[in-house]
């Protein structure tokens, strides 16, 4: 025989302030837990979706980012001559040799400078990234000091909106367009004509060579060939993997820090639940005695109080998750340690985070409720009845 669920719900409903405070404490913990996981997930998703699976990025061996890398023209030409590279509709080889540099730009809101990636691209380079489309203004014209800015840069940095100018490398560059790259890393970049960039920055070497494979299954062979070629000091990676690796350090940092904080915080919330449940048991001693006298088993009493605690946790978890899901509208921008460049990403709620957060909330309720429930179940009928 089990104690009806409505009895449990009513117990919580009678003491509204206590229930609200306890569930509120848990909701805050769940909120912190969920937002941190959402942040790490958002970062990963942004960078993972930046790459295309059949695109290959070639950079100098052991350089961790495109900005650190250097690929001189001779080496770039050798890569370019690979027969595995796909050809586009107009018969042109789908390969793009790109210089990337970091420039420091002041942010719109704080005026504080941060590093922004400037990428020199070619028309082919743009075809290689089908997710990129111009949402305002127009594409830059080759041979001109014109640039287009990613959505996050245009809104976040001074001088990066359409019609404004940015000064770097002794030139004034006019921003002629804003592009949307579908919430990928490119949203945090500024693009211009590759040859213009090389001249302006007086560089002889490209930073990376990106090409599309005609047959994606040939990846391993191409990689092995390029890396064993004695004329080259390069390494090749799938674009997806290349960008995914760039999210690792920051995502790990965020989720480690966040999980540690959540676990410490949950101690506070569990104690809150324990206090509430102990009080709940203490104030109902006579009631528990009566229930036992009526024939409810120890197990049924234990279950009733555990369910009460789990319900507290569940309410806290749902409230915390609702608050956290509102954070999806927020986008944040910070410097990625690995590339030393600004990256905008948003809080992303995944089904796994929902499940984990609710489990976390239920766990807090269970841990907080177990000892009080056990005390209730262990009571002797006579003593409990006499307590009233």
């Amino acid at each position, binding site marked *: 025989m089990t104690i009806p669920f409505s009895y449990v719900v009513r117990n919580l409903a009678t003491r509204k302030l206590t229930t609200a405070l306890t569930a509120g404490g848990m909701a805050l913990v769940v909120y912190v837990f969920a937002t941190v996981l959402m942040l790490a997930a958002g970062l990963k998703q942004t960078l993972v979706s930046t790459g295309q699976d059949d695109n290959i990025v070639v950079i100098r*061996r052991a350089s961790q980012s495109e900005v650190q890398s250097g690929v001189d023209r001779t080496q770039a030409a050798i890569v370019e001559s690979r027969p595995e590279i796909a050809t586009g509709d107009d018969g042109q080889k789908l390969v793009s040799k790109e210089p990337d540099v970091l420039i420091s730009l002041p942010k719109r809101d704080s005026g504080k400078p941060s590093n922004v990636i400037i990428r020199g691209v070619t028309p082919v380079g743009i075809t290689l990234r089908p997710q990129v489309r111009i949402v305002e203004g127009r594409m830059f014209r080759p041979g001109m000091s014109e640039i287009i800015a990613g959505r996050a840069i245009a809104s976040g940095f001074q001088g990066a909106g359409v019609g404004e100018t940015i000064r770097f490398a002794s030139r004034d560059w006019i921003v002629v367009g804003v592009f949307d790259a579908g919430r990928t890393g490119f949203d945090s970049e500024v693009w211009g004509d590759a040859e213009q960039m090389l001249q302006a920055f007086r560089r002889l070497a490209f930073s990376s060579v990106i090409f599309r494979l005609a047959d994606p299954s040939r990846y391993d062979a191409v990689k092995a060939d390029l890396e064993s070629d004695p004329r080259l000091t390069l390494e090749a990676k799938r674009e997806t993997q290349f960008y995914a690796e760039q999210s690792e350090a920051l995502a790990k940092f965020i989720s480690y820090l966040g999980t540690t904080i959540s676990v410490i*915080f949950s101690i506070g919330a569990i104690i809150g639940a324990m206090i509430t449940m102990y009080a709940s048991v203490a*104030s109902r001693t006579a009631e528990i005695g009566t229930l036992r006298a009526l024939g409810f088993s120890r197990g049924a009493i234990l279950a009733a109080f555990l369910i009460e605690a789990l319900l507290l946790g569940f309410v806290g978890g749902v409230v915390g998750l609702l608050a956290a899901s509102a954070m999806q509208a927020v986008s944040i921008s910070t410097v990625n340690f690995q590339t030393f460049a600004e990256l905008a990403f948003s809080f992303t709620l995944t089904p796994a985070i929902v499940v984990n957060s609710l489990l976390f909330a239920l766990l807090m309720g269970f841990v907080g409720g177990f000892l009080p429930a056990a005390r209730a179940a262990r009571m002797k009928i006579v003593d409990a009845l006499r307590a009233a």
Partner: protein
Amino acid sequence: MFVPLLVVRNALRHKLRTTLTVVGIVVAITAFGLLRTIVDAWYAGANASSSARLVTRSSVSLVFSLPLTYAQKIRQIDGVQAVSWMNWFGGVYITERNFFPQFAVDPATFLDLYPEFVLAPDERKAFLTDRQGAVVGRKLADQYGWKVGDTIPLRGTIYPGTWTFNLSGIYDGIDKSTDQSQMFFHWDLLNERVKKIYPRRADQTGIFVVRLKDPQRAAEVSSAIDATFKNSLAETLSETEKAFQLSFVAMTETILLAIQAVSFVVIVIIMAVMANTMAMTARERGAEYATLKALGFSNAFVAGLIFAESMAIAIAGGVIGIALTFPLAAAFADAMGSLFPIFFVSEETVLMQVAAAVIVGLVAAWLPAWRTSRLRIIDGLRAIG
């Protein structure tokens, strides 16, 4: 004597509940202190910087270098006492996980400009004479078990290849705010190798460090330096060392703000727990408080009793929490290694912890105290647990 005794007796009536609440406060205050200390550690570089030093870098961004010939020109500018230069090396020791900063420096001028790095005279001499020599901080040496005379191999990421250095000395910091987890080696060694592999990148340096004759003239001298190189191929940006360090902090400001926000969330959580405890306590003792009032004690006295009990619990938790912060911070710093080179609990953090405990105590007592003082004696006497 009677009132404090009553407060203590009241607080200890539900030993388990009071203990749990105190533990909760201890956890919250400790977590709060640790999070504040993490934020402080972020600013440590900026706080340790000297006001007598300027940093000159390329105006485009830090990844662009400046020609070494600038050193001569900077030295001639009025107000400049000494000039040194350095490059970020970005090498990897065995695996990427072992991160620590490495700089190629001009040893003689560097040691002169940075008196906070203290080297024994013989180690200093060894470093100056050995081109492959390097010095590391005490903390870094302890972390990897390096001893003077060891060979340290690094894999270059910006400067390709494997580089080996002889450990000539281990420096100590002049005080606890000095970063003891860095490595310095000869800039000439780097430049020679760069000359061979990338002739175009030779004789270039990342930043210049300038010591001022008079720290008051920082703004004037930095604009004089920048004016000298205006409209050249490599324009410069000079700022005080502090501003330079703060620009790094600003880049990760979002994360910092999040940690700060979260450190306050923990206080709010514990406030909810504590308020709950006090609400339950006051509710259970409704009849008692009504009796006190019936005996002629004022509303303020009864409210004061609740406040005193709440404060007693909060302060007890606060004191234990603050005491625990110190060993925990030390353990955390050890676990983190060189990620947070400077990590200690500041006085300000302790003061904020005290303030947090007091606020929690006050806020938690406010609602129950208000309710109890408003309680009509007759309702109080009628009420049951």
